């Protein structure tokens, strides 16, 4: 059982949906990002996705691309992102942390070394966008052996024939990408998402969380109502990019969390 499994057990017992929020590690700088991260649980965030910046984020839209560039320009590295997790864990031992990013910085560090460092820092799960099930031997299987959840993306192009392969080595939860597209793109419609979530849930007992295109408390509520929870990333990252103070960003996050929890 990881912190992620515990969180869903607790939410289920309370009859509540999960609110997951994404921020970019080191954006706009290490200290500000850490302050924001520490404030997320208080704003109602159930699970934190912490972005690991990469120069070539091929699945991300302009908002998260810019966040990664700001973080890298401010000197963020994979090691410093793990530092954020270590610092966060000093004051919070229950909120799950999922690192989200691309494979090369991990591969570059060495999978074995990375997993050792991630576990000891207090990471609970990984989302690595450019590792489909076809590449499970690379990181997915070693990560689960090390006690981390490996959270897979399912998409509108993941058909019934392919779904079992996608779910096979997934743990923690399934992240349903509500559109074919990049982060921060067109809004997801709950009417389209509901049947897709039902299709995935008929094939797995894992919670299904929906992301991409959610940016208001109402859309968080509408999506969470047809799934086990909602993820918001770009809308939060955009405010960081505009230089809004941390309390203002957290107030926005609290509104989204309230929306998701209302569902």
């Amino acid at each position: 059982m990881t912190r992620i499994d515990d969180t869903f057990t607790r939410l289920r017992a309370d009859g509540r949906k999960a609110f997951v929020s994404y921020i970019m590690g080191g954006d706009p700088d290490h200290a500000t990002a850490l302050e924001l991260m520490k404030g997320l649980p208080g704003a109602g965030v159930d699970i934190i996705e912490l972005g690991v910046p990469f120069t070539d984020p091929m699945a991300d839209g302009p908002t998260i691309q810019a966040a990664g560039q700001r973080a890298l320009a401010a000197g963020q590295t994979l090691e410093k992102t793990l530092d954020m997790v270590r610092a966060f864990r000093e004051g919070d031992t229950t909120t799950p942390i999922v690192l989200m990013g691309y494979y090369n910085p991990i591969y570059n560090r060495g999978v074995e070394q990375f997993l050792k460092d991630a576990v000891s820092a207090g990471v609970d799960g990984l989302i690595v966008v450019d590792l489909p099930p076809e590449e499970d031997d690379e990181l997915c299987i070693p990560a689960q052996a090390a006690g981390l959840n490996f959270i897979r993306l399912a998409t509108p192009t993941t058909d019934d024939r392919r779904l079992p392969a996608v779910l096979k080595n997934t743990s923690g939860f399934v992240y349903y990408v509500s559109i074919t597209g990049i982060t921060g793109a067109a809004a997801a419609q709950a009417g389209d998402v509901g049947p897709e979530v039902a299709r995935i849930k008929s094939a797995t007992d894992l919670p299904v969380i929906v992301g991409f295109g959610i940016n208001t408390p109402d859309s968080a509520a509408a999506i969470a109502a047809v799934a086990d929870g909602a993820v918001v990333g770009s809308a939060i990252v955009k405010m960081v990019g505009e230089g809004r103070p941390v309390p203002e960003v957290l107030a926005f996050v609290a509104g989204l969390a309230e929306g998701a929890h209302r569902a």
Partner: protein
Amino acid sequence: MPDDLINSFMNGPDEKGRFGIFGGRFVSETLMPLILELEAEYERAKTDDSFWAQMDDLWTHYVGRPSPLYFAERLTEDLGGAKIYMKRDELNHTGAHKINNVLGQILLAMRMGKTRIIAETGAGQHGVATATVCARFGLKCIVYMGAHDVERQKPNVFRMKLLGAEVVPVTSGRGTLKDAMNDALRDWVTNVRDTFYCIGTVAGPHPYPAMVRDFQSIIGKEVRTQMMEREGRLPDSLVAAIGGGSNAMGLFHPFLDDPSVRIIGVEAGGKGVDDRMEHCASLTGGRPGVLHGNRTYLLQDADGQILEGHSISAGLDYPGIGPEHSWLHETGRAEYVSITDDEALAAFQRCCALEGIIPALEPSHALAHVIKIAPTLPADHLLVMNMCGRGDKDIFTVARHLGFDMEG
């Protein structure tokens, strides 16, 4: 060197799309079903005689194949060593080897019922070839090109527009080929249902590296036949320039299992391969990593962040290399060297003056290496360099470097 087919260098990739540890399918889930569909369609097409009959007809009557294997007599005399042949792929329709591959991919796209074609381009040669074939078949074409490259390759931008393509300048990152490829992948993820991504080099997720190689292998197959006709034996050395490495892979592949043939790939050394990293020599100055769907040698920093290279040639300005080259490098079957901007410029001018051929800056790198090694080789050594593109697109860049005022 293997002497049986089981250990052949020509059997790759394996069923996971790997050449040794290189290659693979490192893409997001959204794209994965389409990649598998493409692989299946390519496997069907490969053994379909009607597909190859259509390719042969277009290669002959639209592209102008076979391209000549030309004996560069004056350059040979001037260098006083190996007998130098040039494979004249710059004489193809659109002026480079790129169209060999584009034709194959567009025919596949049509078999798959895709109506919208996207491509990335650096120097613009692949973009022009894609726009050309799309015009020929009446398909919608969108070309992603780094904003920096749009500036330095204006003639090709205008060509693409004349051919009906939409050229999208890419401003993310530093606005070069790598960033154009990122934006093409983002487009593909968004429009995956009706869109075919026509990749211009032997890189990307499996099956692209193998598929593009197979389409470009027409170059090496022709050289084999032509050299047998001219000299009655195989060449002794092959030399080709490498950005992603498609012209080189096309020349090399049919000779991989001929141990007597020495194979040399030439990377862009920019301002010199040293720790300033102002070059694009992925094999000489990089290490293995994962980018754009495959594992291969990459220019990267200590944190695994991808570095922007530098080359005078926009077509070589890419921080990676096709995965099969990484494998040939590690197995030692092929050697990889680098040539600086200045050496390439000198070779460019020497080729114009001695052979009456204006080469592109990309093959000028290969030629510069030929100029280095030919004098050390005996007169009966048969050396083939791939003249993979013509230099019309580069005259502005060269003029600037030589201090010639094109405006005045």
